[in-house]
């Protein structure tokens, strides 16, 4: 275990997950399709989970990994709700393009 971290170093894990996170962010920013946006958000969350795992190893402490389960569960619930809303939107508007959500503004 330690040797892996020794060989690679915690920083790289951080950079990796940060990069992943940013990819997620950019996905959220630049994609208009709701599904894709959800997926980007998932990427963000997973990046974080990865980092949790890494830190948990780094600290030789299980809490981090447990936290990952929390966050996965929560994310699942979130996405469930999200999809539900998406469905009703699709029913009412016939599109899942978030760019069309412009009734409320000003």
């Amino acid at each position, binding site marked *: 275990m330690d040797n892996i971290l020794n060989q690679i170093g915690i920083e790289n894990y951080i950079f990796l997950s940060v990069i992943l996170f940013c990819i997620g962010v950019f996905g959220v920013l630049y994609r208009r399709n709701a599904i894709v946006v959800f997926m980007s958000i998932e990427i963000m969350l997973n990046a974080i989970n990865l980092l949790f795992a890494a830190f948990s190893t780094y*600290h030789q402490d299980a*809490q981090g990994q447990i*936290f990952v389960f929390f966050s996965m569960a929560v994310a699942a619930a*979130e996405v469930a*709700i999200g999809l539900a809303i998406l469905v009703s939107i699709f029913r*009412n508007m016939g599109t899942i393009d978030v760019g069309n959500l412009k009734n*409320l503004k000003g």
Partner: protein
Amino acid sequence: MNTLIAITGLGILCLLFEILNFRKAIIPVTIIGLLAVLGLTYLGYNAPTSYYNNMIVVSKFSSVFTGLFTVLTVFLIALSHDFYEDHQTKISDFIAIKIFMLAGAVAMVSFGNLAMFFLGIEVLSISLYILAASNRLNVKSNEAGMKYFLMGSFASGIILFGICFIYGAMGSFDVAEITEWSRSAELPVWFPIGISLVTIGMFFKIAAVPFHFWAPDVYEGSPTLTTTTMSTLVKVVAIATLYKLLTAMNADLSDAYINIIIVISIASMTVGNIMALKQNNVKRMLAFSGISHAGFMLMTLLSISNSASSLVYYTTAYSLSGIAAFAVILYVCKNKDNEDISNFNGLGKNNPLMAAILAASLLSMAGIPIFAGFFAKLFLFNQVIEAGYLVVVIAAVINSIISVGYYFKLILAMYNKEPNEEAAKTPFVFYAVAVVAILLNIALGLFPSVVLDLLG
């Protein structure tokens, strides 16, 4: 802890009642239950303890806010019956969701461990997503839900990231330990990043500029009762949590931090007030006013070590007047497709009492004396000037001058315009809630010590 369990149990009870066809009983029972919870909270207030190796820490602070949340929830639930009268079948769900939301809120203020904090915030948010979109067939409601969901989950992502960094820095989620280490050792660079990320997440929740964009849209789109919930309960929860978080994480904020808070609070006030000037939709207007109030509340962070009580006072005053105002708005905009100010024309003639209440609550928000809002501002200014940030106070004052502009737009509509149709009969509950809320508000103004001394 017992409070939390009791609340959750109450939620489940609602669902059971639906199954057992005691629909009629739901609301009364819940209210009674919540009052009981209030009692429990009082016990907790007197005996601060921590549970499950610091997962939950019940302190004076947490119990006071729990009490406030519970009271607000009572109001919200009391309003529910008439609000959801046309889909009674789902009422248990709505009630239950609100209760669970309350549970989340309680978890947020009484967390002793970041995990608990995260769960709380998620429970709260998720229930809100549902409530926001709860009017399935209404496009606006859907859009509101969607927007809130997207940005909300994005924010949760940020918060989670922040928590992750904190964990990385500290190797623990336990607030107590983190506090300790944050004081002592010299910290890895991730720690401040983590803190700031979490803080930003909370800024989003309290809708501070520039993370406020969701607020107007969501407030406008969601069903009015949900808007009520957001603008009163949720805002209070968020600011309270942020306050607790920052106190826990690093008691003495660095100058850089202070500067950020100053900038953001001034920005929130200004943007909120100025934007509110030209709104025609009352809910949207109040959304912006909420943003400006968020700015005011953020000022408490400038003297974080001793401003707890003024925060409590401010939030209480604000949320009470909010409840009163929304009760009236609910009554006025019942069976109306929009919430334009024009709906309020001539309310002063049609229904003097309601008009007076709305006027009073608006005056309270504007900070006119004897209403609690004034004292809230006063104590706040006092704290901040004491801490030596005169500039912020002056900005705040200028803002409260601007704010009068739009609060009075509503009052003028009520008193200076002719009514466009006959007055509808008011459900008793709306009266009751509005009157009680505003009376509490005024009483708070006359005897501020009652609240101030809670956190002595």
